């Protein structure tokens, strides 16, 4: 209990420096006792988003792999490097590319800062996706965490948006045509497609207004929004009492849960993980340069032109499905399914160990193998059939039928899991999610590595 005596003025008059210091930090900066440590967590603005005490069992690195904290670290690095890049960058079609070239050539460490920004952005997408999977695999979306799953999905959307808007800014061939293709997809949304596309481009075609629009979103609107929603996300984790307990939820725990103080037990571990990540990013940025193609040329599309890698899966869908399905039906269904995960009825709710149980692990592995293999086979079969086919894709043959086939296959797979492995709802939902994720991942791999000139299937080594 805090005592009244804490704040009573000392007997001897204080010097100015000491009084100012105490007005900024009314509490000890380096806490020494357990009580002081808890106060530090509560009183400092940034720290108060964290729980005061956490379960000792959640501290193990392999329980979370520090993916949430890694995301925060990467975002912080990007804010820092992004602020530096803003000083050098000129957001007009005439100057954008030249200003990036000049930055890399003339500014001390200009290229390194750009590399760090670039690699952070790409690693962030991977880490955020891994974080999503970790939460899914440990069942961290039940009870008080339900809505935080939705917030997390919103953060994923913001990260992708921030990444995509940044992709255009160098104004090289890569950027120009990737954005042309991605905004071109919007044109297939029924009724409002044309308008939507014009809004995304800030005009009828990609030009100065597109660049200003993307620049404003990338440097101001999205980072501010991202920061606010991240705060909400962390605060909700605190309200749920830290991350999910890794011990199985159903069984009675062998001993009473053991709590430890967040400071230093959790924060020191997080600091170590963050520093390791910063080191990895810096080494990567020093060794591998961020790509910069030739200056954008609206008259010549490179062959092949691809979307940024995290959207290549959608681009791959374009090659197999009617545009209405590839652009609207499938993505909307995927997003709705993603948001629905915490709101399904689970009997029982399972959480804690990775993949929920041994059975859950087997089902998930089976789902990943089946999804990836089936997708690879279907892509090749469809690619070879396409070669001999002419005419525009039909809504039934290239939309309804394959979609129905997919649903039937998934339903069959779920039945199989229940009948053969005796999987329960939580494990079946997990396996279904893994199946869909594997399909998407395989589409991405095919699009990134196995599509050559004219988007024909090709080996990556030529």
């Amino acid at each position: 209990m805090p005592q009244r005596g804490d704040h009573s003025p000392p007997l001897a008059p204080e010097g100015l420096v000491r009084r100012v210091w105490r007005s900024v930090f009314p509490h000890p900066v380096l806490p020494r006792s357990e009580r002081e440590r808890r106060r530090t967590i509560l009183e400092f603005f940034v720290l108060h988003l964290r729980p005061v005490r956490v379960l000792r069992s959640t501290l193990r690195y392999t329980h979370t792999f520090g993916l949430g904290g890694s995301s925060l670290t990467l975002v912080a690095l990007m804010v820092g490097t992004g602020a530096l890049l803003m000083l050098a960058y000129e957001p007009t079609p005439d100057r954008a590319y030249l200003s990036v070239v000049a930055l890399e050539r003339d500014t001390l460490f200009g290229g390194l800062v750009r590399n760090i920004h670039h690699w952070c952005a790409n690693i962030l997408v991977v880490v955020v996706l891994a974080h999503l999977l970790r939460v899914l695999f440990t069942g961290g979306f039940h009870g008080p965490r339900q809505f935080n799953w939705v917030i997390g999905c919103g953060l994923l959307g913001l990260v992708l948006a921030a990444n995509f808007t940044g992709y255009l800014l160098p104004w090289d061939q890569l950027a120009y045509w990737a954005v042309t293709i991605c905004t071109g997809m919007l044109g297939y949304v029924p009724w409002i497609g044309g308008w939507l596309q014009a809004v995304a481009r800030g005009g009828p075609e990609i030009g100065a207004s597109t660049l200003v629009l993307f620049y404003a979103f990338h440097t101001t609107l999205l980072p501010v929004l991202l920061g606010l929603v991240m705060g909400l996300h962390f605060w909700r984790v605190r309200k749920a009492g830290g991350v999910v307990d890794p011990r199985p939820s159903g069984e009675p725990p062998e001993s009473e849960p053991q709590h430890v103080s967040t400071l230093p037990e959790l924060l020191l571990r997080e600091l170590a993980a963050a520093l390791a990540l910063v080191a990895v990013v810096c080494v990567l940025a020093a060794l591998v340069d961020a790509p910069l193609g030739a200056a954008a040329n609206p008259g010549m599309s490179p062959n092949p032109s691809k979307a940024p890698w995290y959207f290549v899966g959608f681009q791959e869908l374009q090659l197999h499905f009617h545009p209405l399905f590839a652009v609207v039906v499938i993505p909307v269904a995927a997003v709705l399914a993603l948001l629905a995960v915490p709101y399904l009825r689970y009997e029982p709710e399972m959480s804690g160990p990775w993949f929920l149980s041994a059975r859950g692990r087997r089902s998930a592995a089976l789902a990943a193998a089946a999804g990836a293999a089936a997708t690879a086979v279907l892509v090749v079969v469809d690619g070879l059939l396409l070669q001999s086919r002419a005419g525009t894709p039909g809504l039934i043959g290239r939309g309804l039928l394959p979609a129905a086939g997919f649903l039937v296959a998934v339903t069959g797979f779920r039945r199989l899991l229940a009948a053969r492995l005796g999987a329960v709802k939580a494990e079946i939902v997990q396996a279904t999610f893994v199946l869909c994720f594997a399909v998407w991942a395989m589409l991405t791999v095919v699009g990134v590595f196995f599509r050559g000139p004219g988007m024909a299937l090709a080996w990556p080594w030529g």
Partner: protein
Amino acid sequence: MSESIQESSRRSFLGRLWLVLGGVALAEAVWIVVAFFQPRRRSGARDAETIYVAGPVERFEPGTVTPFPDGRFYLTRLADGGFLALNRECTHLGCTVPWVAAEGRFVCPCHASSFDMRGEVLGPPAPRPLDHFPVRIENRIVKVVLGSPIRRRVVADSQVTRA
């Protein structure tokens, strides 16, 4: 008693009024934001219709396709002597389609859509023929009316201009 009823109904009326006014203010703010997101017209020269002078009829051999990079279109002269001005943007996702003279067709580098010299779709995934611009021939000079490209579901002879 009646006073307190009056009091409470006045209160609820004022409360509702606040709600309505707040709603109006919110709607105005949304309206302003939406207005700022409306696509702007290009400040360039193609805002209004501009006439692009391609050249004398004789310059274009029948059965050839001539690119005009600065006008962003291709001028096709059909074997029968008719002219068609084709927008160079693929109707699938907007990549620029190059004319592959050796194969006698346009092939999109992005998703392999292909079109014949009239803009007709030869291979998917393009959903419709290449857009076109109106062509005029005055004093045996070919002129192309550049503005918004014209979308078409089918390639028809009525789109062709003959000298």
